[in-house]
């Protein structure tokens, strides 16, 4: 059964159904929710059949010739890492559809939900692609729905944000295009020469060639992720986008960057990746600290969350390029956890902004007493974001730091400062927005209603569940990470202190 094609096609069909003129506008959101739930159910059904013991291999593979003249195949398949990312997308889309339930008037909502569903198709495609060209097609095509989602439905500065987002990403993507072409030229060629398998372990014609191609890919992924210093589009885009779109943008789309680093850059260009490690580690640590510092200074709630994400992406990249299995497992897990905790933060922010009509933090205060449930959700999501033990992000952040420390102690120590800063930006924000005496502006506010509870409940549940018991996800991720490590040709450094082995909560692979 072509699981992945099916999961990708369901939202596309749904988008068409939503967009068609004879679908009543009022029903658009129902159709959108239904299709995204169907896609989620299919994803879960597929995940249940996933063979964990061979999670390092591509499963549910489908391979067809697409454009043989150019060496392009329509090849899908998921390993452990891709599976979790597909699942993350499939979970977040219905949540975001539900979050946008009442945000728009019916006429507009048709466009909104159709674009969201198209975006879901592209997201699943990009994570499931096993062909570099196909990956690139989805990678670039994703820009179009997001561009329109921000441009149509964003805040007052949406035009600027949408264009900036598009141009940044397109620039990275076009540079990557040259690298994609050069990679094919280096590869074996032929009608299926773009398959990732055929391009892994290439014998490059020269060190410089490999490094240049690597840089082409890495630049695109660094812009996407986004890393300092090519991050400036994210705060604008995330602040202007509606909450649901911001969730998908930061929670899933940006993961394509780190996902690409882990599953394309490292296996395809092992030598160049090792060559680039020192610089990338420094950039990652700068991102961690810089993002956190700027988050503290923000007065706009959504910009603040965007900057915290830059800090978190710094951690993810750090873990990927630490070249240890702990670091990479941690990063892969972090991608999932960050998706959920940031989604919760953005969605609560969206609910607050919908009530208050302002995203400025100073316009809030005392909400703990008026809307205790909203405050509670924000606190849980925030705590996860600052990696409180018992919540999901802690496990991944800890793994990343442990993994980095064994090889680059200095970087790990500096990055730890990021955790302290995280406590500052989350707790200060909580203090400013939620503590204090009851205020007048919130007099008539309702607390979390049933729909909103359905939006955040799954996220909070996952955050807590993965905080206490991350093993199922790690079991899926670890074999894939092991394989990547083998492809890069690195092994974990031996522990230097006799008798003590680094172990994290029984999650040793």
């Amino acid at each position, binding site marked *: 059964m072509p699981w992945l094609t099916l999961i990708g096609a369901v939202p596309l069909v749904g988008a068409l159904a939503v967009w068609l003129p004879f679908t009543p506008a009022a029903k658009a959101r129902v159709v959108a929710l239904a299709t995204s739930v169907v896609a989620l159910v299919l994803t879960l059904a597929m995940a249940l059949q996933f063979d964990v013991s061979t999670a390092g291999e591509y499963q549910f593979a489908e391979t067809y010739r697409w454009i043989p003249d150019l060496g392009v195949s329509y090849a899908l398949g998921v390993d452990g890492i891709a599976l979790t990312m597909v699942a993350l997308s499939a979970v977040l889309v219905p949540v975001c559809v539900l979050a946008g339930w009442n945000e728009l008037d019916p006429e507009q909502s048709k466009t909104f939900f159709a674009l969201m569903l198209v975006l879901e198709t592209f997201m699943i495609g990009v994570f499931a692609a096993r062909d570099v060209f196909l990956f*690139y097609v989805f990678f670039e095509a994703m820009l179009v729905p997001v561009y329109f989602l921000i441009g149509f439905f964003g805040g007052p500065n949406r035009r600027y944000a949408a264009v900036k987002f598009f141009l940044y990403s397109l620039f990275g993507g076009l540079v990557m*295009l040259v690298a994609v072409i050069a990679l094919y*030229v280096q590869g074996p060629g032929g009608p299926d020469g773009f398959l990732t398998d055929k391009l892994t372990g290439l014998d490059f014609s020269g060190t410089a060639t490999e490094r240049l191609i690597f840089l082409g890919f890495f630049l695109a992924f660094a812009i996407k992720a986004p890393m300092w210093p090519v991050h400036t589009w994210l705060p604008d885009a995330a602040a202007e986008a509606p909450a649901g779109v911001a969730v998908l943008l930061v929670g899933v789309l940006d993961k394509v960057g780190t996902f690409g680093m882990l599953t394309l850059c490292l296996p395809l260009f092992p030598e160049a990746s090792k060559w680039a490690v020192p610089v990338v580690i420094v950039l990652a640590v700068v991102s961690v600290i810089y993002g956190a510092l700027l988050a503290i200074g923000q007065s706009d709630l959504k910009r603040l969350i965007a900057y915290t994400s830059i800090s978190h992406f710094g951690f993810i990249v750090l873990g990927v390029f630490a070249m240890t299995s702990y670091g990479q497992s941690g990063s892969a897990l972090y991608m999932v956890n960050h998706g959920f905790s940031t989604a919760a933060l953005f969605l609560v922010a969206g609910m607050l902004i919908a009530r208050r009509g302002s995203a400025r933090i100073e316009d809030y205060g005392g909400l703990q007493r008026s809307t205790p449930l909203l405050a509670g959700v924000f606190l849980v999501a925030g705590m996860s974001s600052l990696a409180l033990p018992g919540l999901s992000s802690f496990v991944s952040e800890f793994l990343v730091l442990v993994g980095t420390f064994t090889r680059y102690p200095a970087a790990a120590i500096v990055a730890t400062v990021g955790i302290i800063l995280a406590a500052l930006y989350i707790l200060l924000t909580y203090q400013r927005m939620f503590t204090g005496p009851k205020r007048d502006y919130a007099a008539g506010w309702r607390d979390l209603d049933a729909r909103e509870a359905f939006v955040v409940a799954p996220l909070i549940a996952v955050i807590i569940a993965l905080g206490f018991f991350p093993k199922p996800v790690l079991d899926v991720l670890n074999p894939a990470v092991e394989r990547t490590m083998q492809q890069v040709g690195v092994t974990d450094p031996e522990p230097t202190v006799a008798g003590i082995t680094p172990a994290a909560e029984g999650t040793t692979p």
Partner: protein
Amino acid sequence: MTPLVSAAPSLADVLTAAGTIPAPKVDYFAVSPLLVVFAAAIVGVMVEAFAPRGSRFRIQVGVAVLGLVAGAALVGAVAVDGRVLQTAGSAGAAVGGIVGAVVVDKPALFLQGSILVLSLLSVLTMAERTVESGGPFTPQASAVPGSPAESLARRAGLVQSEVFPLLMFSVGGMMLFPAANDLLTMFIALEVFSLPLYLMCGLARRRRLLSQEASLKYFLLGAFSSAFFLYGAALLYGFAGSVRLFDIAQAISGDSGPVGKDPLLLLGIALLAVGLLFKVGAAPFHIWTPDVYQGAPTPVTGFMAACTKIAAFGALLRVSYVALPGARWDWTPALWGVAILTMVVGAVIAIVQTDVKRMLAYSSIAHAGFILTGILAYSRSGVSSVLFYLLAYGFSTVGAFALVTLVRDAGDGDAVGGEATHLSQWAGLGRRSPLLAGLFTLFLLAFAGIPLTSGFIGKYAVFSAAVAGGGWVLALVGVLASAVAAFFYLRVVVLMYFSEPSGPTTVVATPGVPVVVAVSVAAFATLLLGVFPTVVLDLTQGASAFLP
């Protein structure tokens, strides 16, 4: 010098010896598409003379469409037949077509087919009379703008129909241009397709002065470039003793003296290149493009942008792959410079344009630069990528210009005004006419090279050919120019969708059936070539070898 009776000058000796004129060997089947198109053009002239005024327009459209469809069918038949192509094997020997003068090989057939299909779409946009009862052309081109004669013609309800035979002559010339196997035939083809174009540019119904200015500019500069071409051809004749492309190639390979290439050859190549690069609109020979694109009647602009490019690039391909490969190391560096300059100039200057037709003109310049990178790959995949790009770009550009004709100033009462080409008038169009804005966005995304549109596959193909040929610098400049170009395409999208409407001064006219058909076909092709390009890529790869 003995007079050149045939296009092949070597025949001159034969003539004086025998005292008779030997009939050139003509493979009528191979050149039948050309003959049909020219015949349709001549029939069109007759119709203009004899058909009653009331039915003239309809007959002209019918003749043109029939001629183009029959031409396309014959191109298909010749391609399927294959006999012509097989007899054309041995170098310099008898080839399909007319001996020595015309060669009908696979690239020529592909280019002719592309020209015919895109001309057909252009004819449909020119036949539009729903938006304005008189069509997009002036009723009496000879009348001075603003004169009583002009308003008299307008009041009398005269309809311009000479444009169709002119178009057919032009199409015939375009089909001959990439199939020409010697420089004289090539020059004749150049003139045959250019002269009607000069005229057609001056036929716009509105903004007559701008249109006439465009016509005059195009004519003067075009005449200059033709002179350059002819002078180049003369110098190459002086060098090689023949105007046949194959003989020139032979002469070049025999000319590897210790002191480098013959100056005659180098000068000849340079002048010839000026003539060809002018026609494709490459910098620094691009100055005419924005003015002419803006002033010409919009359907004619679409036709020029799509079909002239195909014909001129086809000829450039043939000259550089058949006649001049031996001197490759001498002219490639210059062409590199031209390609880079063209991409950068087109992309950068387009940013500051405020008129949608001028913007598309600069965009076409940038695209000429992208196509040049494919030519510079110097490989079969280079030829194949250029052929694909030309067809893909042609569809999108005809569609885009057809849509431009529909955005109008609000006129008095029910009548629509002239075209609203200023970008500010396009603000908020997405809300007023989602379909038009959606289709225009599709074409813009294709121009920008976003995946799942034909533009992406085209760009990918030319850049990959360039990288495989060692030109990764060209590809890098190309992608950077694409990023810059994306900015101004996006700006139009932003205007259409994310800006408040500019007020009731802009209306979107309801098109008639021909334009609907043309735009639908263009949009469909743009998507199809983006998602399933294999069909056409197979064709272009099969058609990537030139016969000498």
